[in-house]
C-alpha cells in the first residue's frame, strides 16, 4: 500500500484510538471501576466485540454519514477526521464530555461548506433529531428496565455472594452487547469519511464470502479502537461512574444494557428491514454518542429513584459540550482544508 494512504488514514485511526480510550468506559467503566470485572477481561471482550460489531453491522450508519457529505478525496477525508479528532482532544482537554459522533458531523459539514457541496437538510435534521432522541430513549429504556429488574431481584432472596456472581456475568454479557453496538454504531465516526475514497479493494475469502474494501476499512478502524481500549481506557474507567451519580453494580448493568439497546437501534439494518416490511416507521441509522446514551440511561435511573443525587452541574457541562463540539470541528475542518489545499497543494475535493 502507498505510504501516503496510510498517512491520510492516520487521522481516522487517531480518532478511533480516542474513541476506544473514551467510550469503552461507557460499556465497562462501572464494572471495572468497582472491581467487579478485571480490566484485562473487559479490554479483551470490548476489543473483540467492537471489531465484530464494526465489520458485521457497521454499514448502516456509514451510509447515513455518506449521505450528509460524500467526501470524495483522501486528503479531504483526512482533514475531516483530523478536525473531529482535534475537537475531541480539545474538549477532553478542557474537561468537557465529548461525542465523536457530533465532532465528525461538524467536520463533514465543514467539508461541505468548503467544497460548496449542499448539505442534505433531511439527513441533517435526521441526525440532529437523534442527538436529542438518543439520551431520551436511553433514559426511558433504563427507567423501564430498572423497574422490571431491580424489584424482582429484591424478592429473589438470592445469597449476596450468588447475586454477586450473577451480576458479574450480567455485566460481562452487557459489555459484549454494548461493545458490539458501539462498534456497529460508531465505526462510521472513525472511518466513515474514508468510505467514498476507500483505498482498499474487495477480495474473495471463499467463492461466496467476499471481504469487502469497506469491511477492511472498518476492521482497521476497529483495531484502532481496540488499541485505544487497551492503552488508555483504564484511567477513564477508574474515574467513570462517580461523576454523574454513584451507581450500584446492578444499576450499572441497567445503564449499560439501555445504552447498548439504543446504540443498536440506531445501527441495525436488520431491524430497519423488519420495520419496513411491517410498514412501520423506521429508526434512522445514525452514529449516536455512546457517552450521551449512558448519561441518558443514568438520568433515567436517577429519575425513577426520585431524582435525588443527580449532579446538575455535570449535566449542564454535558449540554454545553453537545452544542460546542460540532461547531469547533466544523470551523477547524474549514480552516484545515484551506491550508491543505493552498499550502500543501492537495486535492481536498473533486
Amino acid at each position, binding site marked *: 500500500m502507498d505510504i501516503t494512504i496510510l498517512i491520510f488514514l492516520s487521522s481516522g485511526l487517531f480518532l478511533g484510538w480516542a474513541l476506544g480510550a473514551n467510550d469503552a468506559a461507557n460499556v465497562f467503566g462501572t464494572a471495572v471501576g*468497582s472491581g*467487579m470485572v478485571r480490566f484485562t477481561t473487559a479490554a479483551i471482550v470490548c476489543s473483540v466485540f467492537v471489531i465484530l460489531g464494526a465489520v458485521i453491522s457497521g454499514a448502516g450508519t456509514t451510509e447515513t454519514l455518506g449521505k450528509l457529505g460524500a467526501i470524495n478525496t483522501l486528503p479531504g477525508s483526512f482533514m475531516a477526521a483530523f478536525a473531529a479528532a482535534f475537537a475531541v482532544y480539545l474538549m477532553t482537554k478542557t474537561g468537557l464530555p465529548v461525542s465523536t459522533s457530533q465532532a465528525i458531523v461538524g467536520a463533514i459539514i465543514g467539508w461541505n461548506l468548503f467544497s460548496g457541496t449542499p448539505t442534505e437538510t433531511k439527513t441533517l435534521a435526521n441526525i440532529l433529531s437523534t442527538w436529542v432522541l438518543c439520551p431520551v430513549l436511553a433514559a426511558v429504556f433504563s427507567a423501564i428496565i430498572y423497574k422490571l429488574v431491580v424489584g424482582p431481584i429484591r424478592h429473589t*432472596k438470592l*445469597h*449476596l*455472594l*450468588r447475586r*454477586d456472581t450473577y451480576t458479574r456475568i450480567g455485566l460481562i454479557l452487557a459489555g459484549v452487547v454494548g461493545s458490539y453496538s458501539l462498534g456497529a454504531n460508531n465505526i462510521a465516526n472513525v472511518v466513515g469519511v474514508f468510505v467514498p475514497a476507500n483505498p482498499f479493494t474487495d477480495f474473495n475469502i471463499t467463492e461466496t464470502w467476499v471481504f469487502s474494501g469497506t469491511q477492511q476499512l472498518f476492521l482497521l478502524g476497529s483495531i484502532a479502537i481496540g488499541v485505544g481500549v487497551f492503552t488508555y481506557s483504564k484511567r477513564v474507567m477508574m474515574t467513570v461512574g462517580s461523576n454523574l451519580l454513584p451507581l*450500584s*453494580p446492578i444499576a450499572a448493568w441497567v445503564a449499560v444494557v439501555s445504552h447498548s439497546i439504543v446504540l443498536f437501534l440506531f445501527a441495525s439494518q436488520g431491524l430497519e428491514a423488519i420495520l419496513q416490511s411491517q410498514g412501520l416507521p423506521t429508526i434512522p441509522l445514525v452514529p449516536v454518542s455512546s457517552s450521551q446514551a449512558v448519561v441518558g440511561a443514568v438520568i433515567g435511573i436517577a429519575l425513577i429513584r426520585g431524582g435525588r443525587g443527580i449532579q446538575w452541574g455535570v449535566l449542564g457541562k454535558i449540554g454545553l459540550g453537545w452544542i460546542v463540539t460540532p461547531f469547533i470541528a466544523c470551523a477547524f475542518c474549514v480552516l484545515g482544508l484551506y491550508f491543505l489545499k493552498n499550502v500543501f497543494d492537495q486535492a481536498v475535493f473533486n
Partner: protein
Amino acid sequence: MKFSKDVRLFHRTKDLEVKIDQFLDALSESALVFRGAVDAYLVEGCSDQFSEKHHHVDRLESEADRLRREVETQLYTQTLIPESRGDVLGLLENLDHIINLIEGVFWSFDVEKPEVPDHCIEGFQALVTASCDAVEAVVLASRAFFRNIEAVGDHNHKVVYFETEADKASTRLKRKIFESDFDLATKIHLREFAEKIDDIADWSEDVADRLAIYVIKRTV
C-alpha cells in the same frame, strides 16, 4: 476453559455461602449452649455438665475463628463482592467477638467460681435469657443481610428490644446484689459477672447498628 472457570466460580461461591452459614450456626449454638450452661452453674456450680458445655463452646469458638479466617481470605484472594466485602469482613469480625465474649464468661465462671446467692439466681437467669435472645436475633439479622436484606430491619428491632431488656435485668440484678448483706468483695465480684453477661447483649446491639448502615449502603 471459560466454561469450567465459570463452573468453578459457582462452586467457590457455594462453598463460601456454606462457610458463612456454618459460622452463623456456631454463634447461634454458642448462645444456646451458654444459656444451658449458666442454668446448670446456678443450680449445681462447676459440675460435669457445665464443664462439658464449656468445652463445647471452646470447640465452637475455634471452629468460628477458622471459618471466619477462611471466608475473609477467600473473599479477598478471589476478589468476590468488591462492593460489600469490607462490610462482610467487619460483620464477621464483630460477630466473632460475641463468641469470644461468651467464651470469656465461661472461663470466668470456671476460674473464679462465683458464689451466687439464691435470691440472685432469678436475676442472673433473666439477664442470660435476654442476652442470648439478643444474640439469636442478631444472628437472624445477619442471615437476612446475606439472603433477604429487607428483613434485616425486623430482626434488628428485636436485637434492640432484647438489649434493653438485658440492661433492665442487669440493673435490677445489681440493685439486688448491692442491697444484700454480702461483703463488698462479693458484691463487686457478682456485679462484674452481671456486666460481662450484659456486654454480650450490648455488643449484639452494636453489630445490629452496623448492619443497619450496611443495609442503607446497599439499597441506595
